[in-house]
């Protein structure tokens, strides 16, 4: 799948982005026709005047027009100005209706997801009236197709902007000022989101995986996310958990079901099930994960995760454990 498909506002997968894409194509065709007309008349004017190269230096380059020609030109230009205003007004009305369709009062039973922007990753929290049912994950958003979703956006440090082009337009995450956006996914697919407001060194690599899936698949995913981390099943995984809990990992990360409860970095309870690591930047493979643990700043300069020193055996055990966290 090319980037034109999974990160494109012209390949809509939700009602909102469909409205936006529709408006975009109206603008595109109207302006294309006008551009072509302007270009044609410009060339006609150039060709007509090519022959009239003045040989007399005292003669004005542009000859004074006859009175009749002048008054006809005035009428044509005035008419074109009126037409231009009317076209712009028609586009404005189209824009207004699109905006109204996007921001219309949505379903009060919508799925509420709180998205918190951090330098430089996304914290994703599926809200629930029961606190024990709240699911926290990072850099990966799953939504059911056909159900309205409410995103509550906030930031802990600087302004970020939430943008999944296939789903909806941009919405800023402003520190101290919660914002909200709504959408309803209309077809299943995997898309890419991107921070759309410059937020520091790794802004360009602050991405997320966005998965729209059928309601059954979504509820399976959500109930799997609600479980605490699975118990280690081998000696190596057990040792990996000890390494995790005894080293500096535990100062920033949470693994539900263990004593690791820090919230400075992404929640790692089900990191083995995620498609990407490093905020949607690297595929979640053993090699990339090892490189990320040992020296994250070498992969993403400026990232807040420090390099970690670890013996080879400890690292292998830790990787076994993290990969088991499905």
């Amino acid at each position, binding site marked *: 799948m090319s980037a034109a498909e999974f990160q494109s506002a012209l390949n809509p997968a939700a009602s909102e982005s469909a409205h936006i894409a529709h408006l975009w194509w109206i603008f595109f065709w109207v302006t294309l026709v006008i551009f072509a007309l302007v270009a044609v008349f410009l060339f006609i004017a150039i060709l007509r005047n090519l022959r009239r190269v003045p040989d007399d230096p005292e003669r*004005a380059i542009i000859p004074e027009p006859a009175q009749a020609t002048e008054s006809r030109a005035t009428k044509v230009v005035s008419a074109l100005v009126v037409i231009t205003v009317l076209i712009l007004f028609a586009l404005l009305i189209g824009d207004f209706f699109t905006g109204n369709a996007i921001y219309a009062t949505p379903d009060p039973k919508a799925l509420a997801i709180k998205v918190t922007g951090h330098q430089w990753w996304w914290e994703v929290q599926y809200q629930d009236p029961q606190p024990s049912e709240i699911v926290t994950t990072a850099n990966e958003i799953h939504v059911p197709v056909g159900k309205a979703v409410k995103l509550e956006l906030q930031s*802990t440090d600087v302004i970020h902007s939430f943008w999944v082009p296939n789903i909806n337009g941009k919405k800023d995450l402003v520190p101290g000022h919660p914002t909200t956006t709504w959408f309803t996914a209309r077809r299943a697919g995997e898309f890419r989101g991107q921070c759309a407001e410059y937020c520091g060194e790794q802004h360009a690599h602050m991405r997320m995986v966005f998965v729209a899936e059928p309601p059954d698949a979504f509820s399976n995913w959500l109930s799997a996310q609600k479980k605490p981390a699975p118990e280690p099943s081998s000696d190596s995984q057990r040792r990996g958990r000890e390494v995790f809990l005894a080293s*500096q990992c535990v100062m920033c990360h949470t693994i539900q079901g263990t004593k690791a409860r820090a919230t400075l970095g992404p929640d790692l309870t089900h990191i083995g099930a995620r498609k990407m690591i490093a905020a949607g930047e690297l595929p979640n493979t053993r090699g990339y994960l090892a490189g990320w643990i040992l*020296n994250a700043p070498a992969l993403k300069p400026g990232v807040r995760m*420090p390099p*970690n020193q670890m013996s080879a055996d400890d690292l292998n055990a830790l990787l076994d454990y993290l990969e088991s966290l499905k």
Partner: protein
Amino acid sequence: MNWKTNSRTARTATCRSCRPFGPHGVRHPAKTLLGTCLPYSLLLPVLLLFSCEREERPLVVQPPLAQDASLPQISDLVPGPKHNKGPSVANPDENNSWMMAEGKRFYEAYNCVGCHAHGGGGMGPALMDEKWIYGYEPQQVYATIVEGRPNGMPSFRGKISNDQLWEIVAYVRSLSGLANQWAANARDDHIKGGSPPNSIPEGTPHNSSEPQPR
């Protein structure tokens, strides 16, 4: 037909007036601008001198080498007037505003605030007064964090990376004015993310044992 001649004359006159050494002797606007700016542009090299000392923020942190070899050794853990200060260590982070702001971030993130509050103390001693039970030198503060101290201070050995430790040391010392005053921060380097209490959306009050009314 008179207006034609007039307009042509006017056009010619306009053209002459904007020539740099035209018959009217008008100075070119660009030349006047240059004459005004030249004295100021001489100041530019002086201004550039200031940017020679630009603060550098290391984007790629070097991985730690032998972690324990760099730890200053302090023999006695007992509080008292006679401390072994250990080898003196200059902490370059104390001259760097960014590093101290990072130290403050980690100070909160690693829950130093849980015991020491924001310097005023609580379960643990205050850090913004002049009393230092286990020494105020950078290497002593470092050792206190790494080794832990009796009566509740846990050991953070292996839990916090070396760079972050020195940033926290710089911030802790800046609380009582021991770090470079010119570099110490008057405010947070980042904005607090919580919403103000009166901006939280209204909810329906309900009993916590029942599901929330929709």
